[in-house]
């Protein structure tokens, strides 16, 4: 068993029209190398499910997104994601706007192979009315009416971690794993990019087995992508590149700004990308963000 893929093999295994979940949170530990591979491809009509950051903004800017299912889209220190904003204000996106908690609840329903999970969340708000969510009544004595959060079934999930082995054992070493494990379990196929790939995790890093955020039966492909979260943060290895994110955000205000960003930064491949954004050493030395 060897789940290692090249980044080209990874992107070739996706199809237009798929529903793709992206792990991480805002500008934190996003599988950006995998996202850039999608940006370089001719994939289109995607439904994206995410706690969005620049991943969502870039996919919107590139016209890859048909529908967006989101709890928020933000880059923290740059609160409003400019390309997401542009797409929304142009009215070109189908959307399903969720509460952050509803999103993970829908992933859990999919993971547990349930049609829905009940929750209080969303009731009484326009998330409920605009999202056309249905309610269920508790069959017990309380008789409470609850929102039925439908399963968010994914065709594919993308996540980025510190380490993976060829069998699909992965380790995320940062202080927060967000909802990556639920994206993985909600998906038919999960693709994991990693800073480092080893033959066997038990031969290399057995002491960090508790960082194995999701079991390998939920991991279908692993892709080596050093510095693959750039420009988002990858604790404890490196921080986000706020200077880069700022210039990316500024590009949205210029005519042809996105095309220039694609030409100047995204380019043809990851090796070239890392050179264009300042080099491996500079990215690896980015300080961890302070909150």
């Amino acid at each position, binding site marked *: 068993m060897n789940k290692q893929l090249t980044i080209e093999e990874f992107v070739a295994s996706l199809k237009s029209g798929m529903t793709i979940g992206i792990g991480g949170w805002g500008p934190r530990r996003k599988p950006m190398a995998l996202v850039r591979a999608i940006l370089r491809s001719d994939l289109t009509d995607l439904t994206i499910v995410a706690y969005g950051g620049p991943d969502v903004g870039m996919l919107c800017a590139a016209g890859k997104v048909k529908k967006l299912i989101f709890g928020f889209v933000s880059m923290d220190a740059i609160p409003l994601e400019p390309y997401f904003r542009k797409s929304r204000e142009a009215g070109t996106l189908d959307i399903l*706007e969720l*509460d952050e908690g509803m999103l993970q609840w829908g992933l859990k329903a999919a993971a547990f192979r349930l049609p829905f999970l009940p929750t*209080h969340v969303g009731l009484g708000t326009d998330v409920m009315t605009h999202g056309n969510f249905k309610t269920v009544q508790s069959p017990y004595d309380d008789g409470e009416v609850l929102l039925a959060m439908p399963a968010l079934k994914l065709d594919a999930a993308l996540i980025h971690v510190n380490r993976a082995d060829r069998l699909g054992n992965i380790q995320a070493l940062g202080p927060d794993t967000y909802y990556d494990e639920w994206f993985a379990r909600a998906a038919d196929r999960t693709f994991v990019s990693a800073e480092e790939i080893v033959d066997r995790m038990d031969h290399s890093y057995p002491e960090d087995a508790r960082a194995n955020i999701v079991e390998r039966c939920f991991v279908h492909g692993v892709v080596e992508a050093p510095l693959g979260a750039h420009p988002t943060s990858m604790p404890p290895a490196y921080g986000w590149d706020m200077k880069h994110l700022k210039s990316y955000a500024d590009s949205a205000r210029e005519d042809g700004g996105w095309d220039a960003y694609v030409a100047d930064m995204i380019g043809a491949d990851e090796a070239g990308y890392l050179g264009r954004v300042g080099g491996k050493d500079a990215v690896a030395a980015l300080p961890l963000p302070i909150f």
Partner: protein
Amino acid sequence: MTTAPEFTLCEQLIVAASEAWRANGELVATGIGPAPRLAAGLAKLTHTPELMMTDGEAYLVEDPVPLGPRGYDDRKAAGYLPFSRFFDAAVWSGKRHAMVTPSQIDRFGQTNISYLGGTYDQPKVQMLGARGFPGNSICHINSMFVPAHSKRVFVEGEVDMVSSVGYNPARRTPGVNFSRVDLRLIVTDLCVMDFGGTDNAIRVVMLHPGVTFDQVQEATGFALEAASEIKSTPAPTAEQLAIIARLDPHGLRATVLKDNPAGKRS
């Protein structure tokens, strides 16, 4: 405790806002934005030490983390509350009181941070999205901080997209348990309000020195109620100012209110 000689209006608001968490017990105090965060820290370090707080990333701390640049490892973790546990452990369990700054607030206490104007399919101005507001509002205590009290924030009709639950009878779906909706304080640059009016109507309970009720009403898009006795917002003490200064070593609080006006004594 002596009253300090000089202070800013922002510091006076931070002290007033910290009262939101008084006697809340063991729950996570979350202040989003510099002033609410300083207010939560002040509450924990003065009247309500049992409050819990995060470092803004993933760890629970007993010493509130100062604002702005610092050494990454300066904060000392006492516990662990990453986003991956946040809904289980803090939000849906009701173990939290958040103070936030919505873009719009209506007479029912419903708020909006999602978009302004236009429609759901094509908003005029897209903002963050609903974030955790629907869940926060139906599961735990919430308060608000408004740095510029105006009709743009306190809107005349309903907010453009109801991101958080308030006390609007028209949105009370039959059979739903809204008993945990618990809106406490709204601290603005003009006054302090609560939801103690008729049927949870918004009510002015404190005016900052020099501000009149009519002035607040004039800056609000709906009719306000007045508490039977409206108090004057107290001046910070020297002790409170020293704690605020320690939690904000880079002086970010100077940027919260336009022109950073001086505070006033009554």
